[in-house]
């Protein structure tokens, strides 16, 4: 059975929340979500994919139809080594006291993060944290390991722009404050580094 959710006219994050609630109450059904703005389309698509659905999008006269079917990979997803935690990185140095030591500790943190499972669902980088996801960062190889296992690596676009790093992003995707808020709100817990 396919459950249809008409979220046209709703602004973000309402379509995502509506979809998420419907999935939680009907975990074994397929869904058809209808939205009429690009942001909602992208966010619902990402939610569906994160929860293990195959998402197909068709556009008709300005409306987006998202067909979400339980993917063949669901079983793998359920046994996934990823939990529902989000890590929030707001600086390129860990702790306060010595900047040199802070940089060393941050490198050690990301190495250790790749060694301890389960992995978090996402790592969010804001403010000077974006120095860690851009060219010249010493933790790129560790972030690559996380990304290869399905961890979302998200850098704040405003911050990349502020530090003139927009064209230097070396891993993951650019995000905005709405996605950051959604990621935090939907997380089992948020770990601040």
């Amino acid at each position, binding site marked *: 059975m396919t459950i249809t959710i008409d979220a046209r006219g709703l602004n973000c994050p309402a379509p995502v929340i509506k979809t998420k609630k419907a999935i939680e109450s009907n975990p074994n059904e397929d869904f058809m979500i209808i939205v009429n703005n690009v942001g909602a389309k992208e966010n619902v698509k990402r939610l569906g994919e994160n929860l293990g659905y195959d998402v197909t999008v068709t556009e008709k006269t300005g409306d987006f139809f998202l067909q979400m079917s339980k993917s063949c990979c669901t079983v793998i997803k359920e046994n996934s080594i990823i939990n529902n935690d989000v890590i929030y990185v707001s600086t390129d140095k860990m702790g306060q006291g010595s900047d*040199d*030591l802070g940089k*060393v500790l941050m*490198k*050690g943190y990301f*190495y*250790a993060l790749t060694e301890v499972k389960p992995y978090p669902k996402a790592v969010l980088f804001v403010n000077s944290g974006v120095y860690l996801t851009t060219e010249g960062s010493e933790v790129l190889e560790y972030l690559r390991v996380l990304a290869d296992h399905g961890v979302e690596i998200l850098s704040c676009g405003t911050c990349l722009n502020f530090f003139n790093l927009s064209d230097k992003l070396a891993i993951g995707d650019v995000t905005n404050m709405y996605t950051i808020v959604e990621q935090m709100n939907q997380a089992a817990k948020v770990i601040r580094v």
Partner: protein
Amino acid sequence: MEEEFFIISFESTHYAMLVENKLKEAELKVNLIPTPRIITASCGLSLKIDSDVMEDVSKALKSYDLDATMFQIYRVIKNGNENKAIPINIH
């Protein structure tokens, strides 16, 4: 799948950072990491070195006139969940 690499553990954080900088200046690929749990000694910081660069690193270390009591080198063999760390001597 077996993986082998080398770990140099240090007695002091400053010494670890000093040696890291020296090896990086020599353009050797080393990574400063938290000392793996199987090695209990040290300040908590270690250098991780891939097997293929260990020979160059050993040569460089010998040329630095370091205090041998400040660090210890281990060969680490990772096999699934089983890890072995064997102390080795370059002197």
